[in-house]
């Protein structure tokens, strides 16, 4: 199963940077080396077994943009599953940015009217912290307006913090087949082993694709923080030419395990009952593998 994802927006906006961090293990610092993307760069990312993401990173220089809406229009805008439009929050030419965005929407409406649309207000780290909220709300309402009759979801992002993972996790969530079935199985599993919380990560990206929370938690941003934390650690392992495999962390109030669940997913189990030993939890995770593997296979067969 192949799904086409379009990445568009002004040159220098940060498209290639985000793609490289999420899918190619770049660190935020590494992105400073990236040059402008020439024309369209396609890449394929294996994602959850049979699902293959076909990313179209469309270079944003004006000459290319004009071309996308003219000669290349059919080729680019047909069969699009997801459109990600990146706005550089520091751009001085909002009107022009919006103009291109609207041209893009017209083409989408014409060729792939079912596509899900995401707008990322990017480089938010450059905006003073106390202004981020209001600026984002302002941009969001403008974008919601100009997007009509299509619907768009807006996120604020920066490659320098966890907001990146929040946005991309939501995007990817749209692409995961049988999300509901996955959630149900996860809940079942959590009940059996009495976990506070279980998260399911896509293996390559460590984005959260499903979760089950049985005990309320004060931090609503924890999922993207965890993606960020683990990705950072994975990067530092790769310096030693070793790769991260599994993890157990605990103190006197919790124990947390990250283990491979299926060939394409990691699971994270959080338990606060100190009387449950590590061995038991690890064994439970091992036993759950079959169930999840079967679920994944069934999905990809359909």
């Amino acid at each position, binding site marked *: 199963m192949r799904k086409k994802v379009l990445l568009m927006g002004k040159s220098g906006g940060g498209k290639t940077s985000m793609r490289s961090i999420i899918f190619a293990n770049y660190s935020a610092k590494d992105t400073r080396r990236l040059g402008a993307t020439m024309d369209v760069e396609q890449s394929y990312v294996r994602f959850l077994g049979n699902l293959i993401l076909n990313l179209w990173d469309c270079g944003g220089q004006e000459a290319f943009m004009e071309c996308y809406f003219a000669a290349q229009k059919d080729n680019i805008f047909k069969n699009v599953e997801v459109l990600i439009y990146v706005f550089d929050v520091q751009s001085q030419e909002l009107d022009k940015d919006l103009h291109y965005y609207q041209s893009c929407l017209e083409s989408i409406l014409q060729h792939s009217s079912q596509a899900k649309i995401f707008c990322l207000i990017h480089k938010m780290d450059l905006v003073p912290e106390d202004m981020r909220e209001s600026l984002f709300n302002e941009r969001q309402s403008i974008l919601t307006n100009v997007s009509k009759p299509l619907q768009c979801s807006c996120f604020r992002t920066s490659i320098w913090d966890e907001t990146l993972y929040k946005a991309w996790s939501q995007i990817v969530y749209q692409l995961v087949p049988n999300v509901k079935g996955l959630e149900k199985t996860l809940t079942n599993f959590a009940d059996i082993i009495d976990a506070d919380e279980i998260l399911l990560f896509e293996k390559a990206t460590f984005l959260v694709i499903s979760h089950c929370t049985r005990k309320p938690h004060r931090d609503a941003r924890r999922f993207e923080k965890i993606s960020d934390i683990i990705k950072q*650690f994975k990067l530092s*392992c790769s*310096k*030693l030419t070793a*790769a991260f495999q599994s993890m157990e962390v605990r103190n006197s109030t919790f124990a947390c395990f990250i283990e491979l669940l299926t060939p394409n997913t990691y699971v994270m189990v959080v338990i606060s009952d100190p009387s449950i030993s590590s061995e038991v939890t690890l064994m439970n995770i091992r036993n759950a593998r079959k169930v999840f593997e079967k679920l994944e296979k069934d999905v990809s067969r359909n």
Partner: protein
Amino acid sequence: NQTSNRNMNPFIRPRILLTGLRRSGKTSIQRVIFTKMQPSQTQFLESTPHLTLNQFSCGSFINFQVQELPGQLTLFSSGLSGGSGGNHVQPSSYDDDTMTNVIGGNYDLERLLKRCNAVVYIIDAQDDYSESILRLNTIIQKGRRINPRIRYEIFIHKVDQLSEEAKIETQRDIHNQVRDRFADPIGGIDSWSPTPHTSNSSSQEILINFHLTSIFDHSIFEAFSKVIQKLIPQFAHLERLLNYLLSTSNIEQAFLFDVQTKISIATDSSPTDIQMYELCCDMIDLLINMSEIYGQPSENNIRRLSDDDEDEDEYVNEEDENNQGDNSEQHEWNLVAQNDDYNENNVQINGSRKDSYLNSPLGTPPVMNHQSSTLLETTNEPASAVFDSMSSSVIKLTGGRALYLKEINRHLALICILREEALTKQALIDYNVRQLKKSIIKLFRLNYQMSRSHVSSSTMLD
């Protein structure tokens, strides 16, 4: 006075004097290591035009004072020639000695040198460093006279912008300049670290090390670790304990880390590389970050925890109390001590007269003793609330490697690197680590008691 005796005792806490010219990166280094500031945020730090004393008391072992010299004063260094260091021994002559002012108050400097175990000197490698080296040389000369045991750790700093060759070239150049300008007036100093000739043993021997550092990677943490390791009197003993753990538990490498600062206070005696060191640092980050999300003690838990502590191993318990007592008294004592120093010098403590240096016309040497404002800051990072007696972690990597972390006390974590096979006997490792933990805590307790009863006061490094 018992308190001051205990705290003066280098057997417990090495004292480091961190100094260097204005904008060399002193404040940034402190902020990054001790208050977790993001390196990129340091560009917004303002340089203070005051003489600043900063008292850091982090973890159980790292305690140092930072003397920051306002840059304006260096203007008066132009009239110097190399040899003025040894001439003025009489306190009365200090007031009109420009050199004194350049160094940031001769009297203070002598005091600080007398009491410190190491001087960490920061040189900005991206800048013209000749003036900085001049100042360094003066300090070394003074130090040699006042306190020959001092180690000099030269941080060739901000090397992140330099190529590999430029780094080596800069290091060689600075090395030579320090040697030439310094060796000449004194004569006959031929013992240069990293491998000082032990045959040449005498008070003439000066220990100087060079480190290439930057706050944008782990090099600053590693360099600081090396400085600390050489100063911790328990280091040899700790190293032996870690070696023993290695041999009994099939472990490849072991580090003892101060969790708060990510300074490694001891390692086993096998050679370590910076990548391993970095990975250990990142493991601490991982542990603390995850614990902050899921392992925050709730109100009830805090109570329960402290109750638990009481019926735990007696060593652990006592150590904690000792630390607390030590910290607070340390803190108090330092304030008193500084008061003494500066009252003699007529310098205000926590003074708010920020105008003094800035307003003094450049032609007149500012008179340190009467006009400066001195800021005394005390940074006493509390131990992380989520790092507790049950903190531990195991991480498996591909290629059969694994990392193992265990809490030793509120401030210290043991990190081991081992083969995954060794983990099949994790119970054995757990047991051995518990024994190690007891030995380490005993070791520090012993030292504490010894210092308390005034035994062995000045014998560190021997």
